[in-house]
């Protein structure tokens, strides 16, 4: 589409109404008032604020027919998109939208995450058509009187706005209208979006809840306290994602929860020389248990998320595989029930409360002068661990050849994960130019190793479903189609294995080695004197 100017919003001064518009535009355009209307908008975003981050605004109306509501997406440089969608338990999922531009755009933006209600705004509107001599609307103005609907049901008024929207093919009229209106109002375009103003008025955080760790460590901080700070942030992430996991809002809640738990376990493992208390030892066991009880559900989420890709790559008839898909969904439902029970259990509550108490203790160590022998600085320990794991990986990887068993690649991947977590959690202490190239080559290597191992895990899982599948109605057809799926997985594994050497070489190169051994020395950490 040829570029159409974005709508312009103006904050209107007290008392400026449709009459003010008529005065501002009189002599240049005819002004046609349409009947006023009022409706509520519920603004939507993912839990982690992907719409806000992308600069788009998404809302739904409140009125429903057969559970369907109009959903609209607006973004700069594009025309608004609207479609009707079911609202289930107050949330919207892009894949439930009908085929079309909005579904495509929202799927890309939300990446599988559900759209949740953020804030509700009531808007009284006075549409004003700006017309040419033929009575043709050449620009649209809507005077909006919005108010944010607070949880108590009380509507708190926001600032009156004029929204000026161009009509395709009448760019000059739009420019003229905007100029006249801006001059009459006396201010330039609006300083914040309606949704931002409403969120602020309702004291709601703009931009969603992040699952990023983002703890800025001082390289000289004692390692036990630094570990405590990291783990406390990770515990916050677990707690933020727990309600969404239990409510099964979307699969990313569980994913983010598990990543936070895994990272916590990684901190405890890498810093074990300074985290020696019995409480930490118990937390290690508890976190391992949490990881275990959440694992089956996540594994099945991965199977189901990759389903359409798998069916396509296997060139298997989707109908034949429907039974298998149903089987996976049924298993997922059972796994979820077990997981939810575990996460709501007394054991979980007790474990988490104890862990939180220990975290309070860890975060306070070193604050008082009589805390005993100080632990080593975090940069020193982290640097040593990074170098050690890197060396182990190069040794393991160099020994892998075409005849190596799959277990060797699995071992290497496990070490790779360890290194990845070390860099993610502690890498911020070094300049980006020292860490980023290492992360890049590691990521490339891990992608190959991940494809190899995930393919094998997936194939084993699907193969194990065989007996159950055989007795299900339509099972024999599914079993035949499953053969194609397993072939496709095996082919992808072969391809991944063939690519291994190519990806391992830059990781084990002298240049990368120098980055690790020299670039990530403790004394090169940020804020320290560089050697």
């Amino acid at each position, binding site marked *: *589409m*040829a570029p159409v100017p974005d709508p312009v919003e103006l904050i209107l001064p007290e008392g400026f109404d449709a009459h003010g518009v008529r005065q501002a535009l009189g002599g240049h355009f005819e002004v046609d008032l349409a009947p006023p*209307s009022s*409706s509520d908008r519920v603004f939507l975003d993912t839990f982690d604020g992907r719409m806000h981050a992308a600069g788009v605004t998404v809302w739904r109306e409140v*009125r*429903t*027919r*057969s559970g*369907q509501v*109009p959903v609209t997406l607006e973004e700069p440089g594009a*025309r608004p*998109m*609207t*479609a*009707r969608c079911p609202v289930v338990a107050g949330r919207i999922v892009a894949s439930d939208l*009908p*085929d*079309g*531009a909005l579904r495509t755009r929202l799927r890309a933006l939300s990446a599988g995450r559900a759209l949740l209600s953020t804030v509700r705004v009531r808007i009284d509107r006075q549409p004003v*058509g700006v017309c040419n001599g*033929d*009575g*043709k*609307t050449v620009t*649209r103005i809507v005077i909006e009187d919005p108010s944010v609907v607070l949880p108590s049901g009380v509507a708190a008024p926001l600032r009156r706005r004029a929204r000026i929207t*161009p*009509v*395709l*093919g*009448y760019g000059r009229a739009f420019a003229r209208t905007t100029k006249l209106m801006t001059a009459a109002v006396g201010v330039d375009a609006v300083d914040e979006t309606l949704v931002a103003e409403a969120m602020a008025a309702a004291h709601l955080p703009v931009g969603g809840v992040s699952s990023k760790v983002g703890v800025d460590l001082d390289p000289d901080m004692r390692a036990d306290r630094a570990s405590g700070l990291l783990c406390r942030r990770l515990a916050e992430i677990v707690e933020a994602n727990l309600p969404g996991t239990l409510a099964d809002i979307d699969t990313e809640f569980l994913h983010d929860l598990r990543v936070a738990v895994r990272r916590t376990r990684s901190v405890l493992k890498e810093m074990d020389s300074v985290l020696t208390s019995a409480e930490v030892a118990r937390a290690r066991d508890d976190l391992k248990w949490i990881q275990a009880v959440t694992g089956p559900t996540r594994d099945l989420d991965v199977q189901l998320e990759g389903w359409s890709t798998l069916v396509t790559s296997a060139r298997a008839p989707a109908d034949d595989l429907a039974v298998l898909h149903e089987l996976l969904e049924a298993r997922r439902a059972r796994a979820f029930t077990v997981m939810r029970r575990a996460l709501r259990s007394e054991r979980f509550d007790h474990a988490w409360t104890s862990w939180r108490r220990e975290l309070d203790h860890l975060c306070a160590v070193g604050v008082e002068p009589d805390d005993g022998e100080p632990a080593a600085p975090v940069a020193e320990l982290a640097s040593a661990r990074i170098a050690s794991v890197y060396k182990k990986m190069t040794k393991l990887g160099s020994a892998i050849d075409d005849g190596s068993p799959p277990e060797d690649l699995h071992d290497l991947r496990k070490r790779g994960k360890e290194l990845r977590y070390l860099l993610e959690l502690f890498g911020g202490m070094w300049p980006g130019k020292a860490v980023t190239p290492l992360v890049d080559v590691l990521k490339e290597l891990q992608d190959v190793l991940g494809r190899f191992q995930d393919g094998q895990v997936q194939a084993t899982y699907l193969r194990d479903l065989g007996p159950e599948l055989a007795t299900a109605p339509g099972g024999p057809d599914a079993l035949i189609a499953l053969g194609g799926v397993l072939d496709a997985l095996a082919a992808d594994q072969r391809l991944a294995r063939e690519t291994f050497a190519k990806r391992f070489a830059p990781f084990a190169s002298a240049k990368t080695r120098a980055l690790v051994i020299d670039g990530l020395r403790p004394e090169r950490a940020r804020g320290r004197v560089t050697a």
Partner: protein
Amino acid sequence: MRVLATYNIKGGVGKTSAAVNLAALAARDGLRTLVWDLDPQGSATFLFRIKPKVRGGASDLVRGDSEIHDVLKGTDVEGLDLLPADFSYRHMDLVLDDVRRPTRRLAKVLAPLADDYDVVILDCPPSISLVSESVFEAADGLLVPLVPTTLSVRTFERLLKFVAAQVDRRPEIVAFFSMVDRRKRLHRELVAELPATYASIVDAIIPSATDVERMGLHRAPVVTFAPNGAAAKAYDALWRETCQRIGLVNEHPPDHP
């Protein structure tokens, strides 16, 4: 993008009224909609209060010398745009005759709009010509208004035969009774009998109504200025049936304020 065309060899049967109203209903449903007024008389363009003028005329448009996006105009109905009529369209047959693969040319002209619109409705001039053949090739659905008279039925039969014999990519034909006057016995009889013979005739019936005639006065679709009248409801029913026949997603028409 789905392309529909309101078409009949005969004139004055309700093609433009159908095109304009169905387009307004499509836009109301949230579909990004475009009407291309192919009729040099420019009735649809008039109804949308837009000047019947296209820079470069039919020649530049068909040859691809003008950028189609630059000649589009927004209408007073939000979400509904117009590619206006131009008097030069009266020579469109000649222009088409002068290009390679003339019957596929209109589809080629529309191709750059594929990502911008969900529905395009071609409002065709009354004739059977190279323009018609190009419309048939471009359209997924042919909306044929049928005035219940003997001659109209005969013309409809000829159209069905022509499309079956000449067109490679056959559009789905959605015929509907138009300008029906239930006071007339012949109208009542044909409306009752013909659907049994022609499966392409849908249930929706557009009445001969004052509201439809007043569109010229209001210069707006009847579904916008008299949305609760019998004519608007008839167009609404026609739109829903068209969506079902063409496979357009419109199972959930919006709530009306």
